[in-house]
């Protein structure tokens, strides 16, 4: 597997999200896992069990940090305390790159703890680029921004989501955490063709890929990370790998979490697209 400068040229294979219900299994069985993704915020405390356990994981596994509250698109500046804690954690985990979302979620110091969509405007491009650059300079490791699932679009938008993503990552000179499930969810909610998105994303900047399951409602799809990956999402993944080459891939499963083995088996399905003979399989999946 070949890396790029946005994932520090790492050959990470297929990982899964580290989740509390799986700790016991991981410590007692020591399963072979290419890598774990952690939610940074869960370990940005001062001491105690979360950090002690993380240290045990770090002894045996490669860990990549993924954040949920940097809010690159928020107009209010990030809390300096947040940045300081994040940097301390980066030193602890030695994460080769770090990701957070292309969204906003707090304003004037009040936090929604949600990943709220941005209007795709030039003003938002500028604001977001400034923030990504600032965080990347401060942390001194490559930063990747992740496309989110969204349920609302804005009347003020001046471009498509993929155009917006491209403008941001090119101007900020950062990587992309490309979430193909989010592409699918947003395509359904906003009535565009998800392949247009996958075909437009700057492939040389994709540091990592997320795959996940979701919930379908009558009138919209929610990104709930509580199901296996559906076939149309595997097809988008296949196309993404075809364009980006083998890329560190991670399965997200956050709710109704099944056994470790079940989650790991679901993640490992990605390997068939990453193997040397993958091209044929990619064709088969179409």
């Amino acid at each position, binding site marked *: 597997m070949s890396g790029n400068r946005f994932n520090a040229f790492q050959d990470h294979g297929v990982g899964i999200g580290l989740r509390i219900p799986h700790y016991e299994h991981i410590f007692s069985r020591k399963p072979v896992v290419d890598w774990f993704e952690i939610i940074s915020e869960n370990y940005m405390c001062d*001491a105690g069990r979360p950090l002690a356990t993380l240290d045990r994981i770090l002894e045996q596994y490669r860990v990549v940090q993924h954040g949920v509250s940097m809010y690159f698109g928020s107009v209010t500046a990030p809390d300096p305390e947040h940045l300081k804690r994040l940097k301390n954690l980066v030193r602890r985990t030695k994460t080769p790159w770090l990701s957070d979302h292309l969204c906003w979620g707090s304003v004037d110091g*009040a936090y929604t*703890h949600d990943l709220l969509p941005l209007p795709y405007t030039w003003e938002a491009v500028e604001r977001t680029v400034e923030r990504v650059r600032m965080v990347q300079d401060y942390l001194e490791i490559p930063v990747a921004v992740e496309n989110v699932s969204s349920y609302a679009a804005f009347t003020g938008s001046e471009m498509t989501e993929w155009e917006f993503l491209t403008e941001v990552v090119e101007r900020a000179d950062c990587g992309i955490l490309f979430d193909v499930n989010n592409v699918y969810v947003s395509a359904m909610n906003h009535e*565009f063709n998800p392949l247009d998105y996958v075909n437009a994303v700057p492939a040389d900047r994709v540091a990592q890929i997320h795959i996940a399951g979701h919930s379908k409602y009558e009138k919209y799809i929610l990104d709930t990370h509580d199901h296996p990956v559906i076939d149309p999402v595997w097809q988008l993944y296949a196309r993404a790998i075809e364009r980006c080459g083998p890329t560190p891939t991670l399965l997200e499963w956050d709710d109704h979490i099944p056994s470790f083995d079940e989650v790991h088996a679901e993640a490992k399905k990605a390997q068939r697209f990453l193997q040397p003979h993958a091209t044929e399989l990619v064709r088969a999946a179409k």
Partner: protein
Amino acid sequence: MSAHANVSTTPPTNRSLMDLAALQREMAAAVMQPLTPDENMRPTMPDGRSTTAVAASFIAPNTRLTAFERLEIYNRQYWYRVLGALAEDFPALRAVVGNSKFDALSIAYLAEHPSRSFTLRNLGSKLPAWVAAHPEHTGRRHRLAVDMAKLEWAFVEAFDAAELAPLTQRKIAALQGDSLLTLQPYLQLVALHYPADDLVIELHRREKRQTSEAGVAHEEVSGAQTAVPRLRPRPIWLAVHRVDLSVYYRRIVREEFQTLEAIRSGSALGEALDAGFIGSRIPESKRADRVREWFGDWAEFGWICAG
């Protein structure tokens, strides 16, 4: 599925002139406004404007959902998330006041104190004081509810707060009346109206909250109402602390509690001991022995650190 993006069909003349800061303030205000009792978005904004008009001013509809309905998804998601987080951290308070009263209490609290932190861990930081000041939200068992809120917040702090290097036995032996000390940050001092510590342990056990490997593993918050036994009021002084990464509740006497509180608020050791024995019925002749015992415990648990 159509191959075009919705955004490209919006004529430029319809575009909102709202800047990013204004959009985020407007959207956050709508998203964080409490839902109606039927869990829908409210028809009016806090300032009296129509939510339908506000939503339409910056959100585009699609073929299935209006601007109002699209914004409502975020409004609901916000409340489900923060209410869920609070219910996870305060299961015993929820059991004491009852599930529906707890929801109303949480909504009122969060409307007044929305999260000011990047982490949901701190969501309940102001809840103990808020519950104490709002008996109308707790019902008949107000003082027990206050106890629960205090204890469960102390649990959150004791679980992952900082740990300093404690004083060694030798340094403790050399302490003087004017020595300034710092308490271990994870040590929480909680005065209760009821022996609520046993009840919290029991309720957390029933909620299957286990401080197993690496975290507090929360089961899904259940909708079932948990029965709470009657308790007789009786003052309890509690040190909530951490041993081998697990949280424990240790009952201490009032004098020890007062001494620790005085140390925490910055008093030198001599003054802290004087404050500790205010109103004490422990005879003067026995006090030195008691203090020696406390220091033995503090050394064992690593509660005191250099000032």
